[in-house]
Each structure stands twice: as structure tokens, then as C-alpha cells.
């Protein structure tokens, strides 16, 4: 069974998290909610304050790109070159594959050292496959920009 692999991990953490995670999930998230609140207030407050405190004088020169900037040539809603999509595709794959490192890291240091060795080699195999894919994309020119 799949769950049996992670049993080790759940057993060690169950005692510490049982009270918060099962009994009252809403109260357990209070710190997160407060954090969200602060995160919203923090940028909004200076903007609102600045709106009331700043002097309102418009000059034509002030609307231009700041000092050393150049005037934009085209609209911002331009079509992106297809290379962005290719890089995005590659990024997506290699980024999300690292998700497998997370459960692996949890069970990595168990009591059983022979399992640790096995897990280490397994992960090297996994990463080797990823590197092969990366190298293939490189070799095929998917990473060339120009």
C-alpha cells in the first residue's frame, strides 16, 4: 500500500500535530489569517496615506519615463515571442518535478539506515533521468535564445 511507505513519517508527527490539525482547523489557521491581514494592510496603507499627503501638481515632464528611461515603442499588450513559451514549458516540467523531493525528504532520515541508502540511490536515479531530459533539451537547442 502506498500509505505504508510514509507511515514512519506520520507516526512521528502525529502526536505533535493532532491537537491543532484535527480538533480545530479554523483556530489553527489564525496566525495565517493575521499574516494575510498584515500582508494586505502593509502595501495598501502607504498608498492610501500617500494619496492624502502628497502635493498634487501635474507637469508634462513628470509623466515621461523617469529621467534616464526611453519612450516605449509599442503597446505593452504585444504578442510574446514563442521562445517564452518554450522556456515556460521547460520551467514548468523541471519545477514541478521537484515536488517529489518533498515526500522523499520526509522519509529520508528514518531509523533504518539501509532504507536511507536505498532512498538516496533512488533519488539519484530520479535526478539522473531529469538531467538526461535537461541535456536533451539543451542539445536540441530548446534553450537557445537567439
Amino acid at each position, binding site marked *: *500500500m*502506498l500509505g505504508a511507505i510514509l507511515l514512519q513519517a506520520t507516526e512521528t508527527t502525529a502526536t505533535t500535530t493532532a491537537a491543532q490539525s484535527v480538533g480545530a482547523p479554523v483556530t489553527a489557521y489564525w496566525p495565517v489569517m493575521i499574516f494575510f491581514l498584515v500582508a494586505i494592510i502593509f502595501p495598501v496603507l502607504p498608498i492610501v496615506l500617500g494619496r492624502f499627503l502628497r502635493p498634487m501638481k501635474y507637469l508634462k515632464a513628470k509623466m515621461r519615463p523617469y529621467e534616464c528611461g526611453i519612450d516605449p515603442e509599442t503597446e505593452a499588450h504585444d504578442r510574446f515571442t514563442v521562445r517564452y513559451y518554450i522556456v515556460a514549458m521547460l520551467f514548468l516540467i523541471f519545477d514541478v518535478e521537484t515536488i517529489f523531493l518533498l515526500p522523499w525528504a520526509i522519509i529520508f532520515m528514518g531509523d533504518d539506515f539501509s532504507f536511507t*541508502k*536505498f532512498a538516496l*540511490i533512488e533519488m539519484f536515479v530520479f535526478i539522473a*533521468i531529469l538531467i538526461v*531530459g535537461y*541535456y536533451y533539451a539543451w542539445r536540441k537547442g530548446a534553450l537557445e535564445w537567439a
Partner: protein
Amino acid sequence: MFLSLAFQIAIPDPNVNVGLILPELIVGGVGVIVMLVDAFARPTQRWITGGLSLAGLGAAAAASVWMWLNWAGNPPRGFHDMIVLDELRLSFTLIFLFVSALTILISMVWVENEKLPAGEFHSLLLFATTGMMLMASGNDLVIIFLGLEILSIATYVMAGFRRTDLRSNESSLKYFILGSFSSAFLLYGIALIYGATTTTTGFPGTTNITAIAARLDIARYPALLFAGAAMMLVGFGFKIATAPFHVWTPDVYEGAPTPVTAFMAAGPKAAGFASFLRVFIFGFPFVAAAGWAAKANAAWVSAMIVLAIITMTVGNIVAIVQNNVKRMLAYSSIAHAGYALVGFIAAGAATDLDTRNSALAAVAFYMLTYSVMNLGAFAIVTLIARRNDRRTEVEDYNGIGFRAPALSFTLSIFLLSLLGLPLTAGFMGKVMVFSVALKEGFYALVVVAVLNTAVSAYYYLRLIIVMFFRERTTPWSAPRVPASVALAIIITVIGVFYLGLFPNKVIDAFQKKPVTAQALR
């Protein structure tokens, strides 16, 4: 230091039995090697990848035969019961390897002529094969889902392999959208089953198929069980192209490059059947006693009867009006899925182990015969289509019978086998499937299937008549037959007659009995 680690690796868990997934490892590993070779090889050495892939498939076949010969006793299981070794897996694994090897033979010269990247094609094909084999060997819904996605993602790319061709693009797009749509259905079914199999005695849910079968009666949410099974039925129904979930099939088969269509009609369909059988026959087995388990079994068997009848009828009747050979073969493949479902239903309703195993073997045999004749037919369609798949309309076959007699005659053999003429593989496959259904008492279903076979005579014979008895006005010269394609055609012709005349050996092998029989539940 890492080297020493690698040498003294003691596998801690008896469940991690690498030998149990040896064929999958070989095919997947060769796929990676083919990718690397493709990245390094000079363009003149591209044939290397084809040869390597064939060698890898051969090694995997040898590994599975070795596993087969060494297998005694209960089906061995490993990886925490996620992988199982039984006759269903082994027979389907050999079918997949056979299909892939033939696809490589058919496509080796085609890839060169069309100036497509051969290495990519072959590695994608090998990855798809790995996925198919995992689908057959998984005893856990996780493995089945993973295998299905490995297969599907590789096949989406293969369908769109002719990148500059609009038809190929569209085929790939449609396959992708509807394929992931159906995967989502399957996945929702799995999620509901996982939740439903939580027991009233406090065990959490499971995705293991053996455990699901044992939990049916003590499931906490029987209603979710039915919903989940229905969702999975829809998901698998899409994959094996049963009506009414077949609408993607003709478009995708027509637009994809012809060798890819040959592969898609044979391989992924068989793989879909393998895991469909695994999930429903072993996960929702027949039990004599009343209760949720019996109700679930009765429910899916009756749903499947309706599906089978619709699938056969729609496939055959719509095939009649097709003017494109690839579309016609696509509808024919839908109809054949319907015939194979007849055996599936018999396996689902089987009350004892022997009948069930013979029904499973009949379905596997049917998929083998269908793969053989289908690959043969598509090999010839590939040749006649020429560059860029231009000549695939029925008119393109006008009067070619006496200008390319060998090709047309061979194509006729395959068409007659698809129709189910005695002495051919198609006939034997149908006999096997229908006889197990008759043994289970599904008389009406078999009658419908036989009537459908009669209907299908129209469009198969029509193509033969077009080839031999229609006048051709435009000039036409026989295509050159490359050696690899000739080999593929010879193998399939021999296969058609061998399976048609001496099916016993294969059937016996497909239902090789373990020494101690496994309980039905």
C-alpha cells in the same frame, strides 16, 4: 563513496522487488538511452535508434517470457502490492511489445522519408510502451493512472508528429483535449473509490485493487462506490473508444500519421482493455452473496452490455458511409472494441475461476488478433498513402488490385480477417470471445454481435471490390516496399494464419494456471 554505497545496496524491504518490473525497466531505460543516442548521433546514423529500440523490446520480451516460465504458485506481488505478476499482465505485456516492434518496423523508413526526427519518435514509442506495460502490471490505481498518463502524453506528441501538417496538429489537439478530459473522469472515479472504501471499522480508504474488492461489503459510502465506478467506466470508455465516448476516434485516427494510427489503434486500445479488465474484473468481482459487492458487479455488467451493443452497432453502421480508409478503419476499431467487450462482460459475470480465466484469455487473444491484422492493414495503408498521407480516400484504391497484386491481395487478407472469415485470426478471436459469452448465457448479446459482423461485411468487402473491380482513370504505379515494412507485412500475414489455424497454443499460454489457484475474491 557513492560507488561503495551502490555496491553494498541492501534492499531493506522485501516488497521492493526490482525483478518484478524488469520488462518495464528495460523498455524505459532503452527509451532514455535512445534519447541520448539521438542527441549525440550524427544525422547519418539515425537508423541506430530504430535498431536499439527493437533490441530493447526484444530484451523486454525475453524478460517477460523468462518471468512467465519461472512463475509458479500464487501471482507474485511486489512494491506493497502495487505490482502483480499474473497471466493477464504477461499476455498483454507480450502484445504491447509485439505491437511496438511492428510499429518500429513499419515506421523506420517512413520516418526517414518524411524527414522527421527518428530518435524522438522511437523514444516516445518506447515510453508509450512502458506506460502500457505499467497499465497491465499495476495492481493499484496509482500505477494504472501513472501508466495511462505515460502512455497518453507520449501518444499525444506522436499524433502531432508531423508538425507542419495541419491535419496532424488537429489530430493531436483533439486527442490531447479529449484524452485529458477522460483522464480527469478516471481520476475523479479513483478519488471517489478511495473515499468510498473507507470502512465502517475505521480503516482509511484504499486504491489497491485487491483491497477494494475485499472492502466492497464493508465500505462506508456505498453510494460513492457506484459513482466512482461509473466515472471510471466513462474514463476507460474514452480510452478504448466505446460509443458514446468514441467521437474523438475517427478524427484522431484520420489526422495522425498512418504508422502512428496503426500503433494507436492496436497498442493503447489493448492497454486500455488490460487496465479496464484489471480494475473491473478484480476490483468489482462477481460474488454470489447479496450485498454491495454483488450489486456493484451486477451494475457494471449491465452497463457494459449496453455499451457493448451501442459500440458495435455505431461502429459498424457509421463505418459503412466512410469514404476515407483511415476513418473507416477507425470506425472498424470502435466496432472491434465492442466485440472485445462481449468477452469482458463474460469475464465479469463468470461465477468460477476457470471460466473467468478463460474469458480473460479470450479477450487477450482477441486483442492480439486485432493488433496483428490491424497493424498489417495499416502497414499497407501507409505504403499506399505515400508522402504526407495524401492518398487515403477510397477512390485512391480504385483498380489498384491488378497493378500491385501482392499488396492488394495482402490487404484483402487483412480485411477479410477483420471481417472474421474462417481460417483467419479474426474468426478465431471472435469465436473465442463469443463462446465464453455463450457459456455465461449472454445469448442476445452474441446474436447482436454476429448480426454486426454481417453488417461489417459491407464495408470490408467494398474496399476489396474497389481494389479489384473498379476502373482507374488516373495513372498509378505501385509503391516501392521497403524491406522493414515487407518484414512487418510478412510477420502479420503469418500471424493471421497461425492464429487462425492453430490458436490453441497461444490460448493455453494466455491462461497458464498457477500451481495453487487464487481465490475468486
